[in-house]
């Protein structure tokens, strides 16, 4: 049973590149281009094994999305990684406080991303 991953980013390029990379490595991938759509997917029954989200997005940013996900039933321990160009410690602290599992600063190489995913998803 392949592990499922939800990618949230307002950049079509990011969505396509990360999705292709993960699907090549036998992951089942869903995408959303902002926080609102991602939340709609999660509340409609989709329960991914991992969520990777950008921080700066229209409608609903990554920090707010993480906070809301943590309040959903069944998502308390779902690993959430941020993949963003934001690198300052203040933002990292915000992400950590919101409930993020890890902070990745773009660009993240394809193999590095897979290694990190295997760290947070044992058995993947």
């Amino acid at each position, binding site marked *: 049973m392949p592990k499922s991953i939800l990618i949230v980013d307002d*950049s079509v*390029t990011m969505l396509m590149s990360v999705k292709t990379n993960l699907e*090549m490595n036998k992951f089942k991938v869903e995408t959303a281009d902002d926080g609102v759509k991602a939340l709609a997917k999660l509340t409609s029954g989709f329960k991914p094994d991992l969520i990777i989200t950008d921080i700066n997005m229209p409608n609903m940013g990554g920090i707010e999305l993480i906070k809301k996900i943590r309040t959903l039933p069944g998502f308390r321990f779902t690993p959430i990684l941020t993949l963003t*160009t*934001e690198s300052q410690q203040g933002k990292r602290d915000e992400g950590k406080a919101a409930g993020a599992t890890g902070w*990745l*600063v773009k660009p993240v190489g394809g193999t*590095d991303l897979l290694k990190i995913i295997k760290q947070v998803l044992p058995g993947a």
Partner: protein
Amino acid sequence: MINKFKNSIGYTSEIGRILLISNGVLLMLMVIAVFLSFQTSNYLNVVFLGLALVIMSTSQWFLLSFRLTVIKYFEEKIDVTHDKLNHIFQCIAVQIESPDSVVNPSSLAKEVEIFTRELSKSLTECSITLTNQMQALSIALDNQENERLQKIQDDLLPLIKNLSDAMTAYFNISDRIDETLRKQVTEMQAMILRLEPEVLDLSNRLASMQELPLFPVSLRQLDQVVAINLELDKNIYEQFQVIEYDTNNNALDLVSSMETLNHSANNLVNYITSTITTVSDMNGGVNDSVDFIVRIGHVIQEIPQKIRSDISQLQGATGVIEGLGYLVDSIKEISFQTDILAVNAAIQAAHAGDKGLGFKIVADEVRKLAVNSNHAAEMIETGLNDARKTIQEGLKFKFLEEVMVEMDEAANVLESVQKLEQNHLDMQQYYKTLFMVINQNNIKLSQDISEILGGIQYQDIVRQRIERMKYTMHSRNELLERFIQELSNTRGLLTDDFVSQMNNVLSDYLDMEAAHSNSMHVDENLPQFELF
């Protein structure tokens, strides 16, 4: 005509001056005469001369006051006329310069018409007043009966006539003036319409430029704003350098990854190509073994049919032999009965005595025949048994021989199967190695492709960096537009708020850039990957 009119006014003033000077000289002469008479103690002359002096002074004062009234009237009226004309021309100038004339071109013509009518009315009133006063002056002069005054009147009359002619001519040309002015205004209107965009643009430029050097405060603020903008441009330029650096490196990484990918793919293709011969050889061996086994299979498939055919033939031969056995039994039976008949015949021949000797001989021969027949039948039976046995044994031998051949072939099949198994094992190992190599290459290819896909993230990084620049430049341009607008509206009197707002644009941009990753200035204290 106007000059002529003005000249007539000048003549009138000259007459006044002549009157004044002549009367003044006369008074002086009279004063001197009074003084000399007083010196010579001729007091009667002094009294007369004094009386004459008083009369002369009175008449002089009267004449002088009358002249001043006339001159003042002319001057006032002329001044008024000049003022009105000046006003008209000023209005025309204002209308020409003002963009409102474009909006309402008929207003100027209407105003000119009104002023022209007023001017005509004023001139008419002036003429009537002048005529009346001339008549009064003429009466006064008639009353004075003074030749000198008459002469002056004679001089004044042509001048007055000239003035009247001038005024008449002016009235006559007023319509032409009005018409000319209307025409000129229309032409100017068309010209203004053609020049309007350029004039407005020039006016705006002048309005925005001409005030700047006049206000040191604005210049200082302008210097600050320019300095902040230069600093902002410098930072944006640095970010362009980062973009250039990132895109260059990313392009080089992509090229390198593509080369690696191409190399891995080529290795894989070469490896697979080199294995085709080996696979072909192994396939040949396998095919030979398979063909042999198939052939053996066909032989084995035919064996039961052959056995059934042999058994059938055996059964047929046995049936024939058994049939022959029945015939042998019949022969034996016939032989036995013949032997009994022969014995009976011999007995009967013995009973017949000599007469039966021949018959006895026949009976003996028949008996011998019966014995021989029985013997032959036994021999046939023995032969048939031998034949049956021989057939059975022969068939048995043939079957065993075939079985032996088949066994030999079976032994060959085993060998073929062993070969096949060996080939299978070889192929298993071969394909295991092949798949392992392909898998390794696929993993490498997958990693290369993953790295290439990771490199595409630079597009998003550059996009976000350009969006921050666009946002900042938009804020800066909005502020600059307000800056220029306020410069125009306040004629250079700016608030310090602009400088602080421009500083805010700069500091906001610097903060935004500092918050994001910069591949040219990596902060070692902040890891690129961090698990909480």
